């Protein structure tokens, strides 16, 4: 299809590249624009006025602004998985092939069935949902909300996963500057020349701010020339970085700023390997907010009609984009600045129908311009606009003195004055202060290190912007310790502003305050009548300012109307709290690289790749990937594999990678004394070459962690922790060493990653080891007794550590080698064990064997159990002090009715157990009053050929043999279990000592 001609494009001027035409589609129709356009400016250039339907009433809406404050011109950009709802056409850069669709209309933008809502408008007032959909409550989720969501709302999010990449990066500087208008550029010049490291963030794709549309004269040069010269100078400074397409959206503690860079949003899709957006964390010593000001609307009936536009936006479309929003424009202003739009429009050859000026005085210069150009100047206000989806047709004007007039125009520029952008300066709970002379809020202080300059600080004149920006930039550089010369300050004249506040013009018809959320002036009046006088209540009751634009064009007008009806001043009414982000930021940018398999870092054991080759199933254990079981061909489920593994170990030999256990070198002459203080049992008397099981408590007396610790030398212990607590125990021990016991001569190092460690278990463990260990090593019970530890030579020349410890209840050793030999070791274990049917096993089999043996693990070390609860109370030494000793003696921790670890077996041998089921005395009703504990760990025991478990049960050890009730409301199961000795397997321990 041929692209429609750009009927509303000027033949010269502007910052678009007429040699680079771009074709794009809006609602299926093909148009053309130029490089340098936004989607909005290209639509303007094609005479498109209607671009969307409103949130609640489905009213036809056009383009109100030319920036990121836009409430109306929101579109779905792109298609399929890249579809992005609520994208502002005013900031979306045009690219070849751009596809956009209007939102919230059906079946089409021109004929929208739901616009019937307008007929019911009288009932869709503030609080409508709260008042109407109250009853019955259960209807809310099932009926009301889905129906409302279909009728109201904006764009549709993509359903498929986002195919693009996002990432995050850090940047550091002396001075970060938000905004590259005259104030920001002057700040960058001063700071950069002083030798500061500067980052200048500009959300637009070209630096310059209002200079791009409004021009002016700086240092005697036309603005465009000064801008080019300034950018060239900044580019020549080595540590000044200008980041366009980047919005500084928040300020955080310690001088950290958040910024979002739209790296490739201006392309159909990012080039290969490149990201769509990047989230920046900028660490800066100082910040200059030169984010400018936003022109504010005046609220009157029909002010949302397509063709009604902010005066400064109209200047941008004409001046910067050479696109004419109308052929015959009118201006409604309450200040001098609005008149600049008339000058721009006349310069572009447009007709001016009239200027409606609400002020009493109008400058002689403007009067002579009017008479010279032949348009009337009307003293008064626009009270309503007549028009529709085709745009503005006529304006009704209430003239000062009471009479009325009508003006025919196809476009209306509105200027109600300017609001400084006070977001960044207020994000740390700051409240801006009111300035009567400009009738606007300005920053009142700012987070540490931050200062506002120029229009963001209420200084609207070009000369004032340059001056404030330059001074702020120079001061920021000085404060950051840079002493170079800032050079000379750019100079320009200040324009007249002369504003008479006007917020709302009474009239018939809906007058919109918040156009994105369809909040009208009468909604605010209603809220006040109903008692919602606090601005925070007003906001939530009417949803004023709660749309994605965060009320950038509506908040102050809303406050002003509220103040008027309540009979208070605007500063008395106050503002709501400002919160980041300044513009919406995609969740994808916050996630960055951390999605899917990169959601978090992973840790791999030394045998990981070998296990993967064997087809092991892996389980996430914290950050670790651990082999859970090793399925074999023909096995129908995990239980069959695990049962085989357990039987193979108990009858022969198997091994398991236990490198995930935390491992800590404890060095120094006081290492033993140190361990005596952190463990409940004694380690200073442990012989060199011996291991001992240790239990440590938290300061509050509950169990913290357990593990075996070996003494390798007089002044060297090797401590192990559980996998889950490895990092925490290391931190805890470092805290003990540095803070609690600095008098002890002890040094700690994590060696978790230094050693590959495997548990070898089963009656044929020695047979296997004899194959691999130097034959000179005595592995007999006498030569290497239970809990013995020593370094041995392996065949082929390397050394290993052997620990005779058992978690399975079998004859077992743990063997460790330096980690890069870990994969060789696992392969060699397979070779050495082949004659004995060696079987690698995973964490499931590890768990089954520890439950059979009654060893406690994570589910029992839950942070709520004491040593005595676990049956380990006798380990608590009475001859020394240790962490947690005193608090462990508290009444509740030694109460006789505590829930303690006990074994359980179902009375029906065929029943499966599940952990989490509650224990209730037989015959009593399940419930909190009769709850006596719960099942912590369960497994199918191949050895006993039935399900068994461990439980925490009140007075459990005194009740061995009692039948109790297991109540599992989560799975809807109820059954009887017998309380029994938790050691199901080899209670005498003969096998592990044999």
């Amino acid at each position: 299809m041929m692209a429609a001609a750009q009927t509303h494009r000027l033949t010269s001027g502007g910052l678009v590249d007429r040699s680079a035409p771009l074709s794009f589609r809006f609602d299926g129709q093909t148009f053309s624009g130029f490089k340098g356009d936004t989607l909005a400016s290209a639509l303007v250039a094609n005479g498109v006025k209607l671009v969307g339907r409103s949130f609640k009433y489905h009213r036809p809406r056009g383009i109100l602004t030319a920036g990121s404050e836009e409430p109306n011109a929101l579109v779905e950009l792109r298609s399929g998985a890249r579809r992005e709802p609520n994208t502002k056409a005013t900031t979306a850069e045009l690219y070849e092939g751009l596809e956009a669709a209007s939102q919230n209309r059906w079946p089409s933008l021109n004929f929208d069935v739901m616009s019937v809502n307008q007929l019911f408008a009288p009932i869709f007032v503030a609080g409508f949902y709260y008042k109407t959909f109250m009853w019955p409550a259960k209807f809310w989720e099932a009926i009301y909300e889905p129906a409302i969501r279909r009728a109201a709302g904006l764009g549709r999010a993509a359903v498929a996963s986002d195919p693009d990449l996002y990432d995050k990066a850090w940047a550091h500087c002396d001075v970060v500057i938000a905004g590259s208008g005259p104030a920001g550029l002057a700040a960058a010049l001063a700071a950069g020349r002083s030798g500061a490291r500067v980052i200048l963030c500009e959300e637009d794709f070209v630096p310059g701010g209002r200079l791009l549309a409004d021009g002016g004269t700086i240092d005697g040069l036309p603005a465009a020339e000064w801008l080019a010269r300034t950018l060239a100078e900044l580019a020549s400074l080595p540590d000044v970085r200008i980041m366009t397409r980047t919005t500084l959206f928040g300020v955080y503690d310690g001088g950290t700023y958040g910024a979002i860079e739209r790296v490739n949003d201006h392309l159909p899709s990012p080039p290969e390997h490149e990201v769509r957006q990047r989230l920046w964390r900028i660490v800066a010593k100082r910040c200059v907010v030169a984010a400018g000001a936003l022109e504010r609307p005046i609220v009157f009936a029909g002010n949302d009609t397509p063709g009604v536009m902010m005066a400064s936006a109209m200047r941008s479309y004409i001046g910067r984009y050479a696109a004419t929003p109308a052929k015959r424009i009118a201006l409604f202003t309450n200040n001098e600045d609005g008149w600049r739009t008339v000058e721009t429009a006349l310069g572009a050859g447009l007709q001016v129908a009239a200027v409606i000026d609400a002020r009493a005085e109008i400058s002689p210069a403007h009067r002579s311009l009017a008479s010279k150009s032949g348009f009337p100047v009307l003293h008064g206000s626009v009270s309503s606009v007549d028009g529709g989806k085709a745009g503005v047709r006529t304006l009704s004007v209430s003239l000062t003195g009471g009479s009325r007039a009508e003006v025919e125009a196809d476009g209306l520029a509105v200027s109600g004055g300017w609001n400084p952008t006070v977001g960044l300066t207020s994000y740390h709970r700051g409240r801006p202060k009111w300035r009567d002379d400009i009738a606007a809020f300005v920053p009142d202080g700012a987070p540490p290190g931050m200062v506002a300059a120029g229009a963001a600080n209420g200084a609207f004149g070009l000369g004032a912007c340059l001056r404030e920006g330059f001074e702020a930039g120079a001061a920021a550089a000085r404060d950051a310790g840079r002493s170079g010369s800032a050079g000379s300050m750019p100079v320009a004249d200040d324009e007249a502003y002369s504003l008479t506040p006007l917020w709302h013009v009474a009239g018939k018809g809906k007058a919109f305050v918040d156009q994105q959320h369809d909040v009208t002036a009468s909604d605010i009046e209603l809220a006040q009548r109903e008692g919602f006088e606090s601005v925070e209540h007003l906001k939530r009751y009417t949803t004023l300012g709660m749309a994605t634009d965060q009320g950038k064009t509506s908040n102050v007008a809303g406050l002003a109307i509220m103040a008027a009806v309540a009979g208070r001043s605007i500063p008395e009414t106050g503002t709501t709290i400002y919160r980041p982000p300044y513009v919406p930021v995609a969740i994808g940018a916050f996630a960055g690289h951390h999605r899917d398999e990169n959601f978090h870092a992973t840790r791999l054991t030394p045998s990981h790749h070998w296990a993967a080759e064997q087809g092991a199933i892996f389980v996430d254990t914290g950050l670790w990937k651990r082999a859970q079981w090793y399925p074999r061909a023909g096995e129908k489920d995990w239980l069959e594999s695990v049962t085989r593994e357990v039987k193979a170990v108990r009858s022969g030999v198997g091994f398991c990678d236990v490198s995930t256990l935390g491992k800590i070198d404890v060095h120094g002459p006081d290492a033993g004394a140190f361990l005596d203080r952190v463990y409940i049992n004694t380690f200073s008397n442990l012989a060199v070459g011996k291991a001992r099981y240790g239990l440590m408590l938290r300061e509050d007396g509950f169990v913290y962690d357990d593990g075996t610790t070996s003494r390798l030398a007089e002044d060297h212990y090797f401590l192990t922790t559980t996998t889950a607590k490895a990092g925490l125990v290391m931190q805890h021990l470092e805290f003990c060493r540095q803070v609690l016991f600095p008098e002890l001569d002890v040094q700690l190092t994590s060696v978790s990653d230094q050693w590959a460690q495997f548990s070898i278990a089963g009656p044929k463990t020695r047979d296997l080891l004899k194959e691999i260990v130097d034959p000179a090593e005595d592995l007999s019970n006498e030569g290497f007794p239970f809990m013995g530890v020593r370094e041995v030579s392996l065949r082929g020349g390397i050394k290993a550590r052997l620990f005779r410890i058992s978690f399975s209840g079998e004859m077992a050793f743990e063997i460790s080698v330096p980690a890069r030999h870990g994969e060789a070791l696992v392969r060699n274990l397979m070779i050495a064990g082949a004659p004995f049917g060696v079987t690698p096993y995973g964490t499931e089999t590890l768990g089954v064997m520890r439950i059979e043996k009654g060893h406690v693990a994570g589910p029992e070390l839950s942070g709520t159990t004491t040593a005595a609860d676990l049956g380990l109370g006798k380990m608590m030494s009475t001859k020394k002090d240790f962490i947690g000793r005193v608090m462990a003696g508290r009444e509740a921790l030694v109460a006789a009715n505590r829930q303690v670890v006990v074994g359980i077996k179902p009375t029906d041998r065929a029943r499966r157990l599940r952990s989490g089921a509650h224990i209730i005395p037989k015959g009593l009703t399940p419930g909190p009053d009769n709850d006596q504990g719960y099942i912590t760990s369960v497994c199918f025991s191949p050895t006993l050929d039935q399900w068994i478990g461990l439980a925490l049960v009140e007075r459990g050890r005194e009740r061995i043999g009692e039948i109790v009730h297991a109540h599992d409301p989560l799975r809807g199961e109820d059954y009887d279990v017998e309380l029994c000795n938790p050691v199901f397997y080899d209670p005498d321990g003969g096998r592990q000592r044999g």
Partner: protein
Amino acid sequence: MSNSAIPSSTIRMEGVSVAEFSWEVRSPLDRALVAGRHGAHGDAGVSLTEIRNFDLVQVMARRGKTSEMAKVAKARFGVTAPVTPQTAPTADATLIWSGPDQFFVLSKGGKHTMVALGQAFASCASLSDQSHARVLISISGAKARTMLAKLSSIDLHPAVLGVGAAAATSMDHTSVTLWRGGDRGEQAVFNLLVFATFAESLWHTMLDSAAEYGVTIGHSGELT
């Protein structure tokens, strides 16, 4: 314990079965590292090189023995061991600050192994072998700093992190020791020690971060 690859050997003894065991060393990045060009075409902006087979020993002063440890270090290495986040290169080793009263000795060639250093520092320091606990990655190229800024919160500006400066920091939530080696021509070289079990994960993250600049990947037995 030395890290040189040990050849397989066959032990034959009467009455004992015969088995052949190879104890080859395998880097944790052995599978993940695929040498060659990756990512965007054109000049590679980033070069990632894994340095293999090094000795790394953590030296920690015993209580009150800091100055004695410093004397021993000076005598052995001819340089002052760093007491701030810095490195001290010598002809055959690099001393890297790793915390208050402690430093790493990074070396090649078996001269500064646990055993050798253990004797030298016996009276004043505790030693812990970390040779297998870390992976060493060298990062250079025109875009090295840009890429590292995605992973590291520290300021990598040449005036802030100068040649020889070190940091005990984190990258992508993973603890690392980072230091700036000697420049290679005009370009800065960053060295990174990461815990071995985290190495493959961080390696993939680094590759993803560097892909847009083009990456050259390799491994080397030489310390830079």
